[in-house]
């Protein structure tokens, strides 16, 4: 039992979706994969396939055009799954909140588990947030 519990915490696979971001948060997220921060030591792998991922990491705010795309990707993920909103644009809409096409943060479309504010969010904060997401994921996992 404990091995199963442990395993569910040690292999979180990530899929990253850029909603409408200026790419600042994306660069910070992808830099976590580099040797300087190296999230692979936690077992995090950036798979591009939502079917095979546990964590959906979203940057950028939701607008009218990518609302359905975000929902589509969330629906294709299989249970159990968690959503991480990276950067203040994904959390609440950021500085673009009052634009005519921006709907708001991603929690207007899909349920969010972890909010990581920042503009851009720093890699250390991102790694911290992902660790929190992993903890929530293991709670959701039925062992």
């Amino acid at each position, binding site marked *: 039992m404990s091995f199963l519990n442990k*395993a569910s915490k040690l292999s979180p696979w990530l899929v990253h979706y850029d909603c409408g971001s200026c790419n600042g948060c994306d660069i910070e997220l992808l830099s976590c994969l580099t040797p300087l921060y*190296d999230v692979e030591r936690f077992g995090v792998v950036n798979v*591009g396939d939502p079917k095979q991922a546990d964590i959906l990491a979203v940057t950028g705010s939701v607008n009218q055009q990518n609302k359905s795309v975000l929902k589509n990707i969330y629906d294709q993920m299989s249970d159990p799954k968690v959503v991480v909103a990276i950067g203040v644009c994904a959390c609440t809409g950021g500085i673009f909140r009052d634009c005519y096409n921006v709907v708001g943060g991603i929690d207007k479309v899909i349920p969010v588990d972890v909010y990581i504010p920042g503009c851009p969010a720093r890699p250390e904060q991102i790694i911290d947030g992902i660790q929190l997401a992993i903890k929530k994921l293991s709670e959701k996992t039925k062992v």
Partner: protein
Amino acid sequence: MILKVLFALICMPLIGGLIVGADRKLTARMQGRFGPPLLQPFYDVVKLCLKQRVSVNEFQVLSVFIYFASSALSVLLLLLRSDLLMIIFVMSIGAAFLVVGAMSVRSPYSQVGAQRELMQMLSYEPLLILVTVGMYLVTGSFKVSKIMMRSTPMIAELPLLFFVMIIILGIKMRKSPFDISASEHAHQEIVKGVLTDYSGPYLAMTEVAHWYDLTLLLSIAALFFYPYWIWGIISALALVVVEILIDNVSARLTVKWMLSYSYIVGITLAAVNIGVLYFVR
């Protein structure tokens, strides 16, 4: 006998998983990172088994089970010292059904991945058959039991075929420059290629079947050094290290390159080795 069956079915994939884990660790260290823990592949497989079980259609599920069963059977047959050519053909059942499973899904990524996987099979299968033929020419039999009765290792007479194993292993292990249809880590050109639409427990089964295939090919490589089986194991692990090295320094290349490389270089090496053997005997 029961012990052999259990060893083949349970221990070999564990060894395969450890080799894959060491592979990831070594790759990370080569890239200046820490890398995941050694047991990471096992954590991955367990986590995948705990996920929701969905597939796109029934034939995917059938294909995964046949792939798993035939890979496991081929390792078992190797440990029971059967005919090598038979083992290769049994392994190819699974490889063919992996392609069938991917082609049965109407997603462009699976379709392109399946076509590329077919090209990969086209590249390594003749070479693998020729390696077995080389072993037959030296030993006089295709059976592993006859090979294991030798007192001198085959590597002395089949050096070039051992190098051909590097190409075969590179294609089967999905290492650059041969990781064209799917790859270990996510290269997202066609998402996960032939494995795109597998998820959850079915993806875990394909991963474990991959471990079976890996240990099968490494065991065949180790056979080159029998009866010095320590040297055999060392050489098999050395092959893995060479593959990781090549993986880290090369980019993924095209299908046409892979086909022409494996046919020109692979078949030429095999032809020279077998030709020399044929004329010497």
